[in-house]
C-alpha cells in the first residue's frame, strides 16, 4: 500500500521532536451493503475509505493525527502534527528501517466480494424475505441486510515492524416484525464470518428468514418476563455475550492499569468456577473477530485468560505491554485509521464442559432459559453488567415451557463467574457482534456451550 522508503521517511519525520516510538497505520477499506425492506430492495450502498493514522509516543503522552492524503506531503504533515502533539523530547534525527514480519496468513477468502455480481447479492435478500413471509400471515414486516467489506491494512513502526493484512468480512441478517392481538414483536437472525462470499455455501438464507420469523411469532404469545434473582440457563453460543461483559472487558489491560477493573491485581487468584476456562483467540480462522495481524502489526494469538477458574493473564496492546516490559498479546485494535488503537477482544469463548445440555435443563427446578442474547454493557470498575435476552423461556419443573418477553438481565461479573454450576458439552460460536468501547466499534466473536448461573437478576415486570 505504501513504499518502504516512504514509510521510513515518514517515521523519521514523526520522530523529529524526540518521540520514543512512532507508528504509521495505513488502511484502504471498501464496503458494500444492500438492504431489503418493506417488500422491496430498498437501496445499495458502497464506499471507500483510505488514509493513514500516525502515532508518536513520548513518555506517557501519545500524539495522534490522521490524513486521507497518502502522498509524501500528506504523510509528512500528519507525522509532524502527531509529533507536535507529543512534543517534549527535543529535536533529533533518527533513521528508521522497517522490514516485513513473517506471519501465517491462513487460507484467506475464497471468493472476494468484488468478484460477485451485485445482482447475486441482492438475490439473497429476496430469498430471505420470501421465506420469512411464508411462515405466516402474522409476519407484517421483513428487512434483510447483506454487507461485505475488504480492509487492507499496513502497520509500520519505529521498532522496525512492517506488517500487512487483508481482511474480508461478510455479513447477513434478517429482522422480522409479527403483529398480533398483543401488539408487535420482533425476531432477528444474523451470521457473519471473516470470509468472502463462500459464506453462502454454508449459510441458508431462507432458513435464516424462517428462523427470524419464528422468533417474532413465538413472542406474540410471550408472557411478561419474571422479575428478581433466579437460576438462568443460557443456550449454546449465546453465553459468549455474558462472558464478554461479565469479565472480558475487565481483563483489558488499559482498564486494569487505571484500576478501573474489578479484576485488577487478581492474576493467579481463583476468579471463577473451576469449570471455567476463558480464551480470547484472534487466530480462529473465519470467525467474526479473526485477523492475521492486529492493528498494531502484532500477529493474532490464542490467549488463555482464565484456566480452570484461575485468572492467568489480561489482554494487552502495544502501549500497555511496553510499560510492563512484556509482549503485546495481539489485542491492539482500532475502528479505522482515524482512531487510536486500544486493548480489544477478538473471539472470546468458554471451552466445553462435560454436562449434557438436556441434563442441565432437567436439573433446573425453575428459572429462565435464554436461547438468544442481544447486546450488553458493563461497568468494569464495579463489575455490574447487563445483557439482553431476545429469545427466552421459562423453565418450570425441569422443562422449558412458555416464551417470555424481552428484557435485560443484570449481575455482577466476579459474582456471576463463581456461580456457574453447570457447563455443557455442546460448544457453539454465537452471532457476530460489534463491540463498542470509547466510541469505537470493532467486530468480535464469542462462544460458549450451554451453561447455568445459579442466580442472576431477570429484569422483567412479572412477580
Amino acid at each position, binding site marked *: 500500500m505504501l513504499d518502504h522508503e516512504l514509510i521510513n521517511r515518514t517515521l523519521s519525520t514523526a520522530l523529529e521532536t524526540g518521540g520514543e516510538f512512532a507508528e504509521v497505520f495505513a488502511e484502504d477499506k471498501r464496503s458494500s451493503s444492500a438492504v431489503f*425492506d418493506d417488500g422491496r430492495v430498498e437501496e*445499495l*450502498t458502497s*464506499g471507500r475509505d483510505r488514509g493513514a493514522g500516525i502515532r508518536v509516543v513520548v513518555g506517557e503522552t501519545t*500524539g495522534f*493525527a490522521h490524513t486521507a492524503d497518502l502522498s509524501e506531503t500528506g504523510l509528512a504533515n500528519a507525522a509532524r502534527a502527531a509529533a507536535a502533539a507529543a512534543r517534549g523530547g527535543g529535536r533529533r534525527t533518527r533513521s528508521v528501517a522497517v522490514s516485513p514480519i513473517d506471519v501465517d496468513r491462513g487460507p484467506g477468502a475464497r471468493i472476494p466480494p468484488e468478484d460477485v455480481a451485485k445482482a447475486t447479492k441482492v438475490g439473497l435478500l429476496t430469498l430471505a424475505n420470501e421465506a420469512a413471509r411464508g411462515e405466516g400471515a402474522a409476519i407484517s414486516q421483513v428487512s434483510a441486510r447483506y454487507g461485505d467489506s475488504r480492509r487492507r491494512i499496513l502497520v509500520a513502526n519505529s521498532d522496525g515492524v512492517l506488517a500487512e493484512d487483508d481482511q474480508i468480512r461478510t455479513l447477513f441478517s434478517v429482522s422480522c*416484525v409479527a403483529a398480533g392481538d398483543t401488539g408487535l414483536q420482533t425476531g432477528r437472525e444474523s451470521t457473519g464470518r471473516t470470509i468472502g462470499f463462500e459464506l453462502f455455501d454454508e449459510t441458508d438464507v431462507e432458513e435464516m428468514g424462517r428462523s427470524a420469523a419464528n422468533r417474532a411469532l413465538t413472542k406474540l404469545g410471550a408472557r411478561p418476563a419474571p422479575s428478581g434473582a433466579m437460576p438462568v440457563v443460557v443456550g449454546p453460543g449465546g453465553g459468549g455475550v455474558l462472558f464478554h461483559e461479565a469479565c472480558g472487558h475487565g481483563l483489558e489491560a488499559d482498564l486494569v492499569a487505571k484500576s478501573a477493573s474489578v479484576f485488577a491485581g487478581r492474576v493467579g487468584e481463583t476468579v471463577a468456577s473451576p469449570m471455567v476456562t476463558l480464551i480470547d483467540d484472534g487466530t480462529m480462522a473465519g470467525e467474526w473477530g479473526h485477523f492475521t495481524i492486529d492493528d498494531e502489526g502484532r500477529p493474532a494469538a490464542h490467549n488463555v485468560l482464565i484456566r480452570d477458574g484461575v485468572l492467568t493473564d489480561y489482554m494487552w496492546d502495544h502501549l500497555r505491554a511496553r510499560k510492563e516490559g512484556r509482549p503485546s498479546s495481539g489485542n491492539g485494535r482500532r475502528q479505522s485509521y482515524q482512531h487510536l488503537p486500544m486493548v480489544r477482544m477478538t473471539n472470546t469463548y468458554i471451552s466445553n464442559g462435560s454436562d449434557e445440555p438436556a441434563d442441565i435443563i432437567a436439573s433446573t427446578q425453575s428459572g429462565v432459559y435464554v436461547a438468544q442474547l442481544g447486546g450488553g454493557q458493563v461497568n468494569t470498575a464495579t463489575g455490574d453488567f447487563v445483557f439482553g435476552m431476545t429469545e427466552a423461556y421459562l423453565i418450570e419443573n425441569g422443562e422449558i415451557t412458555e416464551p417470555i418477553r424481552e428484557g435485560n438481565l*443484570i449481575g455482577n461479573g466476579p459474582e456471576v463467574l463463581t456461580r456457574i454450576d453447570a457447563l455443557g458439552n455442546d460448544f457453539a460460536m454465537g452471532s457476530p457482534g460489534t463491540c463498542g468501547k470509547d466510541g469505537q466499534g470493532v467486530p468480535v466473536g464469542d462462544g460458549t456451550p450451554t451453561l447455568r448461573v445459579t442466580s442472576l*437478576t431477570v429484569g422483567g415486570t412479572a412477580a
Partner: protein
Amino acid sequence: MTDLLDIATRVAGWAKDGEQVEAFVVHERETEVRAYEGEVESLTSAESQGIGVRVISDGKQGYAYAGTLDHDALEETLREARDNAGFAETDEFNGVASPDGVATANLELYREGLVSFPTDDKVALAIELERATRATDPRIAGIESAEYIDSLYESAVATSTGIASVTRETGCYLAAYALAEENGETQTGFGFSIGREPSDLDPSVAAQDAADRATRLLGSIKPPTERLTVVLDPWVTAQLLGIVGHTLTGDAVLKGRSLFAERMGEEVAAGAITLVDDATNPAAFTASMVDGEGLAIRSTPLISDGILSGFLHNSYSGRRSGTASTGSAARGGFKSAPGVGAHALALQPGDRQPSDLIAEIDDGFLVQGVAGLHSGVNPVSGDFSTGAEGLRIRNGELAEPIREVTIASTLQRLLQDVVAIGNDTEWLPMNAAGVTLVIADVTMSGA
C-alpha cells in the same frame, strides 16, 4: 479549503436527464485531549472529509460514499451510486428533497472563539479537569478518563432539484469519569460541561458532577424486588426521550415498526406530557439550521397534553404519508443515506423543583444512571427493561444508594404513568434535553 457547497453543487449538476442526484459533503476538524495523572495521555488532532452521493433513477435509489474530496473520487462516487441504483427496486415515493419555501432560522452556531483557541489551552483545560475531579473529594481514588473534545463541522447539501444549503457549527465539551473508593468498594460517576466555544465550559462543574455521582453510590446495596415510583434524573430522561423519538419517525410508522403508528389524535401519554422536536432552539447542543437533506430545521409538536399530534418526516416519509417533510432528515455521517430522526427533543417542563417532587414520594427510586438501553428496550414492541443505579427515596428524602437492579415496564405504560415533570430542563450532549421525570408503578427487579 475548497468551498464545500461548490463541490456539492458541481456533483449534483452532473445529474442526467430523468435522474435526481443529491451530494452531501462534510469537512470536520476535531481535537481530543485526554489527561491522566497530570499529563497528556493522548492528543489527537483530526481532520476528515468525505462525500455521500444519492442517485434516484426510475424510482430506484442508490448510494455511495468516499472519505476524500479528490476530483476523481467525486466522479467515481457518483458513478457507483448510479450503478447501485440500477439494482434496487422501484418505489414511487423515492426522491431527494426539493426547496419547500420554509425559511432557515438564523442561529449563531459557529464561534471564532473555538477556532482561534490554542492547543495549549485545550491541554490546560483537560489537565485542569482531571486535577479538579481528583481534588473534589478524598474518596476520588482515580480517573478513568478526563477529556476535552472539540469539533469544527461544516457540511453542504446540494441536489439536482435546487437544494443548496450549508451549515457550519462549532462545539466542545469536557467529560470526566471518576472512580470513588471506600472500604474496598469502587463506584463510578461521570460529569460534563458542554458549549459552542471553550469559554462556555466550566471544568469545576464537570468535576463536581463526576465526583458526586460516584461518591453518592458508595455503600450501595442490591434491594429486593418491588414496584415503586421512579424519578428519572435529566440524564436518564433524555435517553428515554431519544427512544420515544425513534418510535415517532415516519419511517418506523410507515413500515409498521412503531407502536404509535395507528394512534394519531389519541391519548398516548399522561396529560402533563408535551413533547416537541425543535432544533431551532439555540440552547440545544444539537441545534441546527438545516436537516440532512438541506431543508430548514423547524419545530414539530409530537405529543400535546398527552395527545399524539405529530410524526417526524424526511422528504421520503413525508411524501409517502401524503404530508411533507418536517425537516427531520437525519444523517449518521456521509456513509449512509439520510433517514428520519429527532434533532432536539424537549418535554415542556413543569413548574416545580426536583427536590419538591421527591419530597412527596414515600417509597421511590431516584435513577441516576441506566445501562443496556440498547439491549433491553425494544422500540417496536415497547418492552422496556434497563439496568439502573441511584438512590432510594424514603418518606420524601433521599436514602441509601442502590445498584445492580433493573427497572422495567413498557414504553406505552411509562408515558401514561408519568405523574410529574420537574422545572430543571437541561441540554445534554445528545438529541434530547433532560428534565426530572416522576413515573409511578415501575418494577424494580433486584435480589
